[in-house]
């Protein structure tokens, strides 16, 4: 068993990155994410990693690109407006097939928005975000413990598939304090024969690019990428279910709203409504097969998507339900976290 500490979500994420053997962090402070870079700066004298506050988010993601190309375990973190700035770099990294972890401690949008938690970045996170055909593995923690677990898992998945991994958290998880169990620090020994570490006499030079001028080459690259994404969709779907075995009403929620929704399930069951919660852990790949399966069963009557957005994940839920059962949406925006009471009041108007 690892070390037990009482930590803030952002600090836990930073500590997890250190324990995962992170070698480089490049970032730019933005509320509600600033504690990550603050923690890493404070811990820097005790560890061996590169820490740099870049001049902007555009610079930090391109530093991550460079660090990843050189075979280092690298990370950046930001919040919603900063992540928008990073999109060009993320697309480049995805095309160049480089592993890295990006954490988006999302806040309310659009625009400069608010600094309170939001989930309005769902589309940007799961549908690509930048230009071109690519996907990111998107992990959505709902507790401080999962901030730790998913950061470490994120690094491992990134290396396994050579793809950027996005930890899509929100201001509430980033700012809340909870007990965490930290794993033992890992020694990171990369096996990256493709890394640009300088040509040796026994191999050809390594070459990393996202530029393919000839259409045939670009298409070949795209086909390779799609094969990889298919493989990820096959292997890496993760989700959690709560009391869905006999549920007639299913709530689908991720991140901090899944915690409100868990309470809703308990409240509803006290009131005689058989409710269950399905929490996607990987937002991409989305657990659509499981939702289809539930939608096909006679027992389940309806689906509810609860989000801190104006209705984003509900589209994926609807695609998975595929018209078999009615699907409703409840959301709050602007940094307001829906309370269990208001969610259950809404659900009662529909069932």
């Amino acid at each position, binding site marked *: 068993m690892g070390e037990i500490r009482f930590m*803030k979500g952002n600090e836990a994420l930073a500590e997890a990155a250190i324990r995962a053997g992170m070698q480089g962090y490049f970032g730019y402070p933005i*509320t*509600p994410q*600033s504690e990550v870079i603050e923690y890493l700066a404070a811990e820097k004298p005790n560890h061996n990693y590169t820490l740099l506050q870049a001049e902007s988010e555009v610079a930090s993601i391109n530093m991550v690109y460079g660090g990843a190309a050189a075979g280092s375990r690298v990370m950046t973190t930001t919040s919603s407006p900063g992540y928008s700035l990073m999109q060009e770099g993320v697309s480049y990294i995805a095309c160049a097939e480089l592993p890295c972890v990006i954490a988006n401690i999302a806040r309310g949008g659009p625009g400069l928005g608010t*600094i309170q938690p939001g989930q309005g970045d769902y589309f940007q996170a799961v549908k690509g975000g930048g230009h071109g055909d690519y996907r990111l593995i998107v992990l959505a923690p709902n507790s401080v413990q999962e901030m730790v677990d998913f950061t470490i898992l994120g690094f491992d998945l990134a290396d396994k598939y050579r793809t950027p991994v996005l930890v899509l958290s929100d201001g509430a998880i980033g*700012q*809340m*304090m909870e007990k965490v169990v930290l794993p033992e620090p890992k020694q990171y020994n990369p096996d990256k024969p493709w890394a640009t570490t300088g040509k040796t006499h026994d191999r050809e030079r390594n070459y990393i690019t996202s530029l393919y001028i000839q259409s045939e080459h670009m298409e070949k690259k795209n086909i390779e990428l799609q094969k990889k994404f298919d493989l990820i969709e096959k292997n890496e779907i993760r989700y959690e279910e709560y009391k869905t075995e006999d549920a007639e009403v299913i709530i689908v929620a991720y991140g901090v709203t899944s915690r409100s929704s868990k309470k809703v399930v308990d409240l509803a069951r006290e009131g005689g409504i058989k409710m269950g919660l399905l929490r996607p852990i990987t937002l991409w790949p989305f657990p659509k097969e499981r939702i289809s399966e539930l939608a096909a069963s006679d027992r389940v009557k309806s689906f509810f998507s609860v989000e801190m957005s104006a209705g984003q994940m509900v589209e994926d839920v609807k695609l998975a339900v595929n018209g078999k059962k009615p699907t409703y949406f409840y959301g709050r925006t602007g940094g307001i976290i829906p309370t269990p009471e208001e969610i259950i009041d809404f659900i009662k108007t529909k069932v």
Partner: protein
Amino acid sequence: MPAKGYVDIIVDACKGCGLCVTNCPTQCLDLKKDDTNSYGYHYSYMADEDKCIACMNCAVMCPDSVITVYKKTG
């Protein structure tokens, strides 16, 4: 009735979650709507200093332990 206590808040460590405001039995605390700390959060402050009864609910509730309550003596 004069206040029995004084609430000291570390402004820059406050994330404006409002738990202290919700749990104050005398509505002594509020979030500062016209000012922010260095992170941009509307921090908690003593809106009505006379109302504090030094019950320490705010300090117990504060998830970031930024509140200290002083009891007035004499």
